[in-house]
């Protein structure tokens, strides 16, 4: 139940990331058009693209985990016997989970500061800073949930 729910959540995040990437391509192209063909100046495009792609990275990370896309060196565990292999994978997953949990928590603090302090980016656009900061705790938080789901899957596969 939990596993299925989290898998779906990660898929949804992946879809959002893809939309952000598509939007970035269009915005970069629009920016180039405005800047070099119309010779006008652009205000929000650069920032939008940067933050959209950072958001796509964080929100996409649980999706990528679901599809085993976070590259690792599987040389040793690829050759290990199934008993030790399980424990090595467990250890590797727990280490990754620990880091992601710290990252998500720290990202949350950063977001919270920006939110309560009413920070904005120091450009003409003056975007409230909490908007670009939110995807980090959100995406990495879901990544943690996905890691827990992967652990459950591995545990069930063993039994």
């Amino acid at each position, binding site marked *: 139940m939990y596993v299925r729910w989290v898998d779906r959540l990660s898929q949804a995040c*992946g879809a959002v*990331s*893809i939309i952000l*990437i*598509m939007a*970035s*391509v*269009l915005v*970069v*192209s629009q*920016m*180039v058009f405005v800047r*070099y063909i119309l010779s006008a100046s652009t205000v929000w495009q*650069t920032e939008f*693209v*940067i*933050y959209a*792609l*950072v958001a*796509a*990275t964080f929100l*996409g*990370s649980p*999706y*990528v985990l679901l*599809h085993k*896309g*976070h*590259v*690792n*060196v*599987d*040389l*040793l*565990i690829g050759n290990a016997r199934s008993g030790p292999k399980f424990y*090595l*994978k467990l*250890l*590797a997953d727990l*280490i*990754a989970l*620990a*880091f*992601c949990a*710290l*990252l998500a*928590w*720290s*990202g*949350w*603090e*950063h*977001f919270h500061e920006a939110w309560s302090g009413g920070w904005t980016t120091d450009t003409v656009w003056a975007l409230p800073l909490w908007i*670009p*900061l939110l995807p*980090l*705790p959100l995406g990495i938080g879901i990544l943690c949930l996905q890691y827990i789901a992967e652990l459950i899957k591995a545990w069930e596969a063993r039994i």
Partner: protein
Amino acid sequence: MSPLLAGLFVLVCLLALLAIGTPIAFALGFVSIATLIIVDGWDVVSILGETFFGGLASFGLVSIPMFILMGSAVASSNAGKDLYEALDRWLNRVPGGLVLSNLGACSIFAALSGSSPATCAAIGKMGIPEMTARGYPKEIAAGSIAAGGTLGILIPPSITMIVYGIATETSIGRLFLAGILPGLMLTCLFMVWTIYSCHRQGIGLDALGRRYSMAERFQALPRVIPFLLIIVGILYVLYGGVATPSEAAGVGALFCIILVMIIYRMWRVSQMSQIFRDTLKESVMIMMIIGASELFSYTLSVLFVTQSIAEWIASLAVNQWVLMAIVNLFLLVAGFFLPPVAVILMTAPILLPIIIQAGFDPYWFAVVLTINMEIGLITPPVGLNLYVINGIAPDITLSQILRGSLPYVFCMVAGIVLLCIFPGIALWLPNFFMGPAL
């Protein structure tokens, strides 16, 4: 604890985590934050989010997802097949023409896709069956494509070059230019070796294939030329100083998507979503490693590891070429196990000060480093290209592929030696177009 010892300790921990299969990004992150916690206490966790976010939020990095998107649009279409056919139709009466069209198609496709495995897959699907059908030994067929595919990370636009540029704060345009001539040089070396080894095995170089009329030859062009124009356009825009790499990449990606939609009729949502899913996977993977390596290099500099290693090497006062040989050996070994992007991100902050101190040019070094990474792609245990070939040509065994690729490893080593003797191969073009580096 002295900085060097601390650095060694961090390195050993990192290797242990990588060995048990922790994803590279999270292993780097975990080692960094654990070290920082030991040194500075728990409060340091609060900088984690800021550093990670700050490492990714830059306009220069925008080019990475954009170039990946461009590559995966091209790779998912039949552009590789058409490119191969076009070259084959034009070159098949030339002695050794099949070899030339295979490796030529590899280097052009490499430029478009910026990815080595994608190049291998796209050209190999056509090239390997064609070569074996015309009586070339399987080893040579597989080996030449595996090696030709590695050019993807050297010939611009190349993702690994962008990553190097970002990690070392060097000019991406200049790096791209530096990669062109060495890329062509390697292509020629591969061609010469392939033709020579065919000749030695008594394989006639006169093509056995059919003749094509001029009409057929021109017919093959319209599908290929738009993509070539995109590469030329991107390079022109970058070196004319017209736009930044990120802008060029964004527009290039848009054009490539439109082209595959028009030329290859890839209208369906499922086809488009496959392109974007591939892009997402690849770019998230790379961006997470970039963010984590930001943290890693911050940690190393807090511990004074980076500075101490540079000082230590300087105090040894070894000959600069001995130093270069050691660095190469180190990179080669790292490349055996880790993907190119990870090696560059992890080693560049440490190696670059050493390299510059020894009087080497950072752009020249980028090329040498990249060729080392190319070698890693066709050598076990994680030679990605070998497995790609194994996947697309199931009738060729892995050991045949390995035997076939080995000579090309020597070609690349020869390439590195040539670059050491004539640094101008890498530096002439950027200096010519952009003036001497500052």
